[in-house]
């Protein structure tokens, strides 16, 4: 029996979602571009599903683009702005807490297109320091500001509302793109209210199938499509649309919305239980995630045992967690976000990430803590 604490990486798919998807794949599998009745019905199905999706995200139907995942959404947003036929400052502002889907794309844009990328550093709470961001915005005119909303390593939440206010004040024409991959099901998300221009999501983080993603794009934002072809989705993302998947995405999002409060309370309880268990077991630990991080993501440092070693032990006990930095002398293996927290003595190599969700139980937490204790007692050097 495996115990799964890596929900930030991906989620299990609930049986009702699988049943829903299976049925859709049988009954709703036509090409929505076809001219005969079945095709037209498929197209209507997509429209209905997209409308539902938009509604759960606080966006308009026209603002939703269906993609193959968050990495594609992020690529589309960033490259889309860069290649759009708009006047350019050739400068992009981001942070140093981003996911590789963002950082690698920015590196590409920098190298191949000669852009300057500014990275606003994180403070010790794992979020961008507003003062520093302000300085960047005052100093330069940018083509795009791209930021992660909920950090996947720490669970820290960037102050998006305040950042949007700053943008409105200082650079009202600057489009903002949000990597909201870890936001769904953890914090409420409303596209219109936030006042941002682009947002990327991935459904497999909330119990949908891998290979389904969303890019929200406000109507007045112009992007060059990443993927050219048959002109589907208003030419913004060519490729045969998948009525069964899109319907399932709507189903998953509506389910998430319905159960939002209940699931969050459950996870808050679990996190508290985890901490109390660690205390009770008198384990030497330090929570690296800031106080106001989402409860679902808990980065913990166990200073007595390397993360990789602990991972090996937990893995043998079929307890699945993730680690921040691999135990390696190679610089590239060290997690960039953790490095910025300036943990003493290479402690970033002692950090494991536990990500909780509605399916975890207190018993599982007890099992985890028990095994951590055994591991520390036996193998701590």
């Amino acid at each position, binding site marked *: 029996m495996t115990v799964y604490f890596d929900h930030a990486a991906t989620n299990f798919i609930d049986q009702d979602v699988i049943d829903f998807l299976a049925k859709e794949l049988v009954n709703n599998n036509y090409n929505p571009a076809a001219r005969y009745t079945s095709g037209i019905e498929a197209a209507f199905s997509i429209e209905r599903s997209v409308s539902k999706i938009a509604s759960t995200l606080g966006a308009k139907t026209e603002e939703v683009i269906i993609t193959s995942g968050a990495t594609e959404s992020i690529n589309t947003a960033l490259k889309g702005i860069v290649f759009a036929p708009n006047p350019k400052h050739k400068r992009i502002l981001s942070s140093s807490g981003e996911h590789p889907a963002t950082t690698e794309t920015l590196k590409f844009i920098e190298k191949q297109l000669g852009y300057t990328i500014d990275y606003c550093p994180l403070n010790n709470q794992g979020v961008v320091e507003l003062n520093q961001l302000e300085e960047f915005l005052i100093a330069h005119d940018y083509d795009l500001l791209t930021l992660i909303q909920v950090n996947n390593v720490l669970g820290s939440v960037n102050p998006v509302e305040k950042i949007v206010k700053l943008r409105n004040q200082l650079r009202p024409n600057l489009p903002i793109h949000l990597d909201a991959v870890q936001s769904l099901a953890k914090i409420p998300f409303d596209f219109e209210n936030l006042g941002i221009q682009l947002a990327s999501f991935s459904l497999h983080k909330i119990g949908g199938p891998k290979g389904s993603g969303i890019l929200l794009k406000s109507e007045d934002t112009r992007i060059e499509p990443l993927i050219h072809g048959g002109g589907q989705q208003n030419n913004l993302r060519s490729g045969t649309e998948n009525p069964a998947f899109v319907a399932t995405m709507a189903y998953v999002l509506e389910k998430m919305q319905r159960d939002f409060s209940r699931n969050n309370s459950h996870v808050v309880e679990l996190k508290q239980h985890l901490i109390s268990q660690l205390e009770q077991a008198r384990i030497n630990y330090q929570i690296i995630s800031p106080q106001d991080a989402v409860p679902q993501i808990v980065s913990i440092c166990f200073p007595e045992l390397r993360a*990789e*070693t*602990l991972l*090996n032990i937990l893995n*043998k006990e079929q307890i699945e967690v993730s680690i921040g930095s*691999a135990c390696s002398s190679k610089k590239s293996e060290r997690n960039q976000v953790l490095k910025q927290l300036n943990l003493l003595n290479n402690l970033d190599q002692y950090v494991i990430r536990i990500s909780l969700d509605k399916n975890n139980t207190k018993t599982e937490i007890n099992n985890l803590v028990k095994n951590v204790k055994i*591991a520390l007692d036996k*193998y701590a*050097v």
Partner: protein
Amino acid sequence: MKIDYQELILVRLGEITLKGLNRRRFEARLIQNMRYRLRDLGKFKIYQDQSRVYIEKRPQDEIEFPTREILKRIKEVFGYTSASPVRRFSNDKDLLYEQVKAYVAQLFSDGKRHTFKFETRRVDKKFPLNSYELNSDLGALVLERYPDQATVDVHQPELLIQIEIRKDIYLYHEIQPAYSGLPVGTSGKGMLLLSGGIDSPVAGFQMASRGLLLESIYFHTFPYTGDQVKQKVIDLATRISDFSGKMPLHIVDFTEIQLELNEYVPPEMMTIVMRRMMMRIADKLADQKKINCIITGESLGQVASQTVDALRATNIVVNRPVFRPLISNDKNDTINLAREIGTYETSILPYEDCCTVFVAKHPKINPSLADCEFAEQDLDIPDLVKQGLNNIETIII
């Protein structure tokens, strides 16, 4: 005239032809090893004649002779210098000419220009033409048939077409060089200390090429090193066994011993004491298996534990010779060889085999024997060795 020939592989023996009375034993072993290496392709007629070995289809087999597959596999067998795919047919002058025409047609079928030369060895003196006559006659024939493609080069021809006239006639041009060395099993057995690094697999390969049968030993420290490292070592052992034959891999559970060392040994002496413990266990295991030498991938000066003093300190705890074939190697040479024998890519996979947790920042690089004895004074060495030997998982690769 029917152009019928038999395909076979001709294997040339080198060093082992010098072994005098032992020659029979070496040749027999070489043939046995070849048979083993070719076992997945089927059974073949393999025999020795003078200073050559021949690989042929058995008379009862209908299948096509898998020339290329055989050549590929025997490349990994030690004990001969080169091999050639050969066409053999009856000793008849007219047949020879027809065979050569057909053979050469194949060589020039690509439409490109090639330089060539014939080289004939006439062992059967009754053959109507002598070597010189044959070479020129056949050369002229080729020039006539392929005027736009063929040119003669008597010094470094691209195609050196060889003809041997014996009881039968042998026709070939390709020579596939081998690693040479001695057939595995003719020099006894060795215990290889295998890690997941680049060096030890290469050391294993080198010693197997001198005819040593190998058994290997690997020290696993779970959970400080994960199971991926163990798998990496198994993969490396599997590759080495392609050259060295069936090889037992002894996986020693070293964790408890490591923790014991960590408790009693000063940190800067940890590396050297660890190595001494590993050597002791390997030595005792070799003793049990009646293996009289140990092999390591050590190279002088490469890491802290490989200074002369350190090597002396690790050498002194064993009771048999330690072969270090890479001792004077430049790292680049070792890497190149690792690439060639197909172990490099596996070795560089990022799973560390010696957890850096236990290695001091500043290990003592020139430990004297007294230093070692002092560092080990609180350890019950015979007990630790026994512990190591009692916790071995053996896999036959």
